[in-house]
């Protein structure tokens, strides 16, 4: 029973990572950039929903929608102002700009909402008892897991079936060729950032509900871990991000429960390193040999 409850908390934590990693992986797949500001968009999503619930007194579902809208707009604005002028710049320049955006968001949040941690009540409360009350599963865990599965399926369908999804895949394959086929590359990249940021907002609400606290640095560590998860599953691959996120969450929960709380992150990262050494393109990533 104890094992099961650790497993469930691992899966729900992993689901949050997976949702963040999906955003990371989509942006990476198309823009070929590590968007380090993604973690801070999560934090902004958390704060927006927090303010909507407590200062404006809106119902939870409206607050979540508001966070999604604000983060989507924020994602598009960031892409337009900071990343678009650097389309042809070396990747390190884009990376440093992304870090600059990350600092900017973190410090803006620090100024607006102050450094002290706010307590964030879960968007849904209560728990269900199964196995005659031996195992308690909170509704927020169930919500997180189902949200993650729904998002994963929706994204997979969107990318493989819709016109915009096809454009995204074409852009990630070869931008110049896609443009010649009449695809609006800039609009496609903006759409990808919009989707990634919307996912970040949802992840922000779920993450804060899970941790029941919120501060300006809330997003950074989950951001790094989700990035790890995306690489773990094979960056650029949607099922890979899902799998990587879930595995990462489970490993972290198990390491915390059975090995050491202090070394939980180290164990997660050590597993990542071993996986990458054995499968250099991640679990589900395509290995593309270099042509000479």
């Amino acid at each position, binding site marked *: 029973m104890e094992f099961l409850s650790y497993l469930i908390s691992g899966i729900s934590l992993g689901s949050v990572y997976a949702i963040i990693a999906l955003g990371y992986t989509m942006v*990476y797949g198309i823009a070929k950039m*590590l968007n380090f500001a993604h973690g801070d968009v999560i934090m902004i999503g958390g704060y927006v929903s927090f303010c909507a619930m407590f200062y404006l007194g809106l119902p939870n579902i409206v607050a979540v929608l508001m966070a999604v809208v604000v983060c989507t707009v924020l994602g598009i604005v960031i892409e337009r102002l*900071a990343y678009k*002028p*650097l389309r042809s*710049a*070396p990747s*390190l*320049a884009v*990376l*440093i*700009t992304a*870090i*600059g*955006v990350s*600092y*900017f968001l973190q*410090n*803006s949040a*620090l*100024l607006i909402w102050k450094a002290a941690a706010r307590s964030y009540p879960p968007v849904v409360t209560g728990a269900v008892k199964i196995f005659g009350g031996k195992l308690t599963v909170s509704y927020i865990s169930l919500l997180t897991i189902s949200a993650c599965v729904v998002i994963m399926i929706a994204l997979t369908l969107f990318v493989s079936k819709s016109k915009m999804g096809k454009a995204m895949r074409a852009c990630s394959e070869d931008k110049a060729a896609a443009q010649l086929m009449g695809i609006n590359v800039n609009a496609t990249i903006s759409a990808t950032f919009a989707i990634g940021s919307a996912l970040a907002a949802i992840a922000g609400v779920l993450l804060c509900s899970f941790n029941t606290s919120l501060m300006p640095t809330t997003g*950074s560590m989950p951001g*790094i871990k989700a*990035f*790890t998860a995306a*690489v773990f599953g094979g*960056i650029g691959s949607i099922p890979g991000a899902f799998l990587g996120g879930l595995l990462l969450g489970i490993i972290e929960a198990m390491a915390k429960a059975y*090995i*050491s*709380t*202090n*070394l939980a*992150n*180290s164990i997660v*990262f*050590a597993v*990542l*390193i071993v996986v*990458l*050494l054995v499968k*250099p*393109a*991640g679990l589900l990533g395509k290995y593309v040999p*270099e042509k*000479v």
Partner: protein
Amino acid sequence: MTKKMKQFNSLKKTTRVDFATYFGVIAAFVIVTVLQSNGSLKRSVIGLLVPICCYMSMAVSLNLTVGILGELSLGHAGFMSVGAFSGIVVSQSLAGLIPNGPVRLALSMFVGALLAALVGLLIGTPVLRLQGDYLAIVTLAFGEIIKELINCLIIGCDEKGLHFVFNLSGNKTVDDLGLSANGTAIIKGAQGATGTATIASFTAGFILVMLTLFVVLNLTRSRAGRAIMAIRDNHIAAQAIGLNLTKYKLLAFVTSAALAGAAGALFGLNYSSLQATKFNFNLSILVLVFVVLGGLGNIWGSLIAAAALTILPEALRQFADFRMLIYAIVLIFVMLATNNPQAKAFIKKLLPHRRAAEKED
């Protein structure tokens, strides 16, 4: 004098730049020392002198990995951390044996560099097989692992030698070391190293920067350095002409780690209290920002960027809460401006000799 000038001008351009870099660092050291003895430097700036030297050394050494070897490393702070804590252990445990501060500092920095090089070798051997963003994420992971491991370390010292406890469960304390009555705890797990004798000095920092420059510049201009740059530019072509990729990659990576370790030891001995969490991902990124802003592969650029960006938050102190925000905006704008074709053309116009050189081509 004119003969000397002629000799200088007849040197290769890279050699001239290298000499100018050394000269610039020496000049900066002399000026700062004079200003300091005049008492015209603010206390806050004096406190920054040693960290600036450490960051300069870190930036130059990271430039070796990122700019010259061409591999993105996001875990440079990890090596600094290894150097810092091993340096602190050496310095604190030998305090009775070697009372002379500078000698102990030199020994600590040497041991710090040695251990960091060892860790670099351990990490580099498997990891340098990966490429691009995968290498970046693994170095990031190693940086985090080193941080957590040191966070769990408790080390004390008495007349019998060093005592180690590894705080895996999180409930061990200094008492578990079993120190004798006159033993002292040096590193106390999550509390970090406290009560360290601060023996770091600006002169030591200057020597460290000069040493780093000497090592990195000589390596870059040597046969091995040309091999490393060949690997950066095209690793398949480099392999085809018979270069041993692993050997040269490791050479650059381990040298970079060792220099970071020495810088870490100096950094650690500059503060009486230091936690492992100081050497986190953000510090690695900070050093990377120095390297990228200074220009990849450009050594003097790294030096200037490190000094300027360490002083910038201090200079913005009057803006209090807004200083990190301004820092972020400056960072974004500099990146946008330096990569903008119009801005690039404008800078080119400002540098007439470069335009003349291009016309000759």
